[in-house]
């Protein structure tokens, strides 16, 4: 395989890796505010993609209207999930929380199967499907859209966390929850917001990936797992690390699929996950000191 072939693989790795990164950011936001790993994170991605496909396909709405509606719908689902399943708990154990988010992911998946059946769907590309040639490799215009949306989401998040009062309150909650409540931050509201926000991010990921990756009711689990691998590799709770780790995992995965065996493609992220957990649970970018405070 020549250099352009490798480049081609790297491009496709970057594309899919950016989605893993977004999913990972969703994990980080909820983890930072609550200490919960939301096993249903991948289902938000699936729901975003599926709802968008329905709006565009069945309801025949234009993309630019469907996009915000789909994101809003999934955000609402995330918020409802928090209100109904997380909010009522009194001093839950970690085991309880794990099982609750797993149960929720089963419910979301079952609901999606109920609504859409078991068929696989695809979304039209956002613009033309004619590949663009770069250094002998080609990329689809959709890849440019994906990278553009990632950039916008990351910038918006950076603005939200650095420049708005609510974003600062979320960071304050992550740093010290009881102190945040002492300055008057309603922590329960922030927890609700963290679920809504990460659902929204998941939905965006699902929508922008739908044109190049087929969507079905089962798609969420594997995307969630790979996103989690990226979150752990980037250092759990570190959104910047998550995005970088997402790209890394995407590229390694694409290279593995292209150069070794496509059978084992899906195992790459998992092997990375286990390797990081066993060797350096704080991830690439997490400090060992900070990780000591977390519950491994």
């Amino acid at each position: 395989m020549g250099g352009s072939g490798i480049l081609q693989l790297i491009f496709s790795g970057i594309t899919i890796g950016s989605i893993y990164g977004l999913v990972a950011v969703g994990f980080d936001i909820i983890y930072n505010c609550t200490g919960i790993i939301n096993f249903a994170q991948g289902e938000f991605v699936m729901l975003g993609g599926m709802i968008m496909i329905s709006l565009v396909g069945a309801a025949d709405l234009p993309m630019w209207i469907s996009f915000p509606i789909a994101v809003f719908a999934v955000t609402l689902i995330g918020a409802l999930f928090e209100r109904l399943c997380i909010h009522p708990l009194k001093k839950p154990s970690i085991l309880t929380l794990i099982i609750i988010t797993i149960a929720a992911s089963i419910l979301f998946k079952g609901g999606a199967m109920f609504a859409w059946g078991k068929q696989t769907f695809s979304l039209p590309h956002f613009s033309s499907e004619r590949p663009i040639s770069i250094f002998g490799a080609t990329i689809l215009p959709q890849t440019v859209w994906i990278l553009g949306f990632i950039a916008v989401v990351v910038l918006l998040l950076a603005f939200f966390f650095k420049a708005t009062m609510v974003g600062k309150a979320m960071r304050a909650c992550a740093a010290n929850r009881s102190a945040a409540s002492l300055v008057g931050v309603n922590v329960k509201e922030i927890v609700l917001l963290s679920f809504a926000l990460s659902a929204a991010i998941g939905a965006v990921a699902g929508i922008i990936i739908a044109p190049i990756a087929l969507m079905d009711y089962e798609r969420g689990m594997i995307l969630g797992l790979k996103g989690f691998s990226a979150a752990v590799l980037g250092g759990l709770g570190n959104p910047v690390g998550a995005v970088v780790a997402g790209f890394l995992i995407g590229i390694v995965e694409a290279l593995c699929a292209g150069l070794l065996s496509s059978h084992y493609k899906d195992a790459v992220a998992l092997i990375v996950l286990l390797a990081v957990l066993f060797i350096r649970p704080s991830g690439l970018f997490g400090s060992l000191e900070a990780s000591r405070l977390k519950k491994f």
Partner: protein
Amino acid sequence: MPILVKGLKMLQMRNVNAYYGRVQALKGISLHVLPGEIVCLIGANGAGKTTILRSISGLLDVLDGEIRFNGTRLTDLAPDQIVRLGISHVPEGRQLFGPLTVIDNLRLGAYQRYRRSNRSQIQKDIEYVFQLFPLLEARASNLAGTLSGGEQQMLAIGRALMSRPKLLLLDEPSMGLAPMVAREIFEVIKDLREGGTTILLVEQNARMALSLADRGYVLETGKIIIEGPSAELLENREVKRAYLGKGRKGFFE
């Protein structure tokens, strides 16, 4: 600052019992604070001083008894609602937001006010805090986690003041600080009282606390054993023996 009628109890705890798991931390605590007073709680480690502050600010649910602030029952309210009523708690060990800047810590102190009052008011209050603690102004854009112990205590007090509290709960403001720095902090506490803020103070250093406070309560294993005006407590034989031993020289002597 509104003028408050003297003699009306601002804070009142009646027969409060609280538990940490199965350990009873507070056993029938009754105390009150009048407007404009500085009241101090003294006692050994684990006597229940911090627990009293935590139960007032809503961090700890009390089992029974009643806590009222200007007539409003606090027992069922969440911490953020209690802040809105005008109580601000400077917790033990500062509890700053380490990864955030000094100025963001102060802004978060005014979190409740961002939705209601205008930002220039809040900016003015930040300047007021910088006036109280000039050291903080120089470090405004540093991360709170990088401050020295004294600066952290100043920031913790400054952050608490940003909600414009009527009652300030101060937990061990001198803990771990050099005597010079501790004295500076206590000067500021005096200033605050002169400005009309009511203060409930927890302090290990009993002499220092009593020399500042109007009244005091002495706690032992979750119960109040002695109470009275500071001057009386300073002369009390029991207090002298247990808390004002020869090795415990204050800073105001």
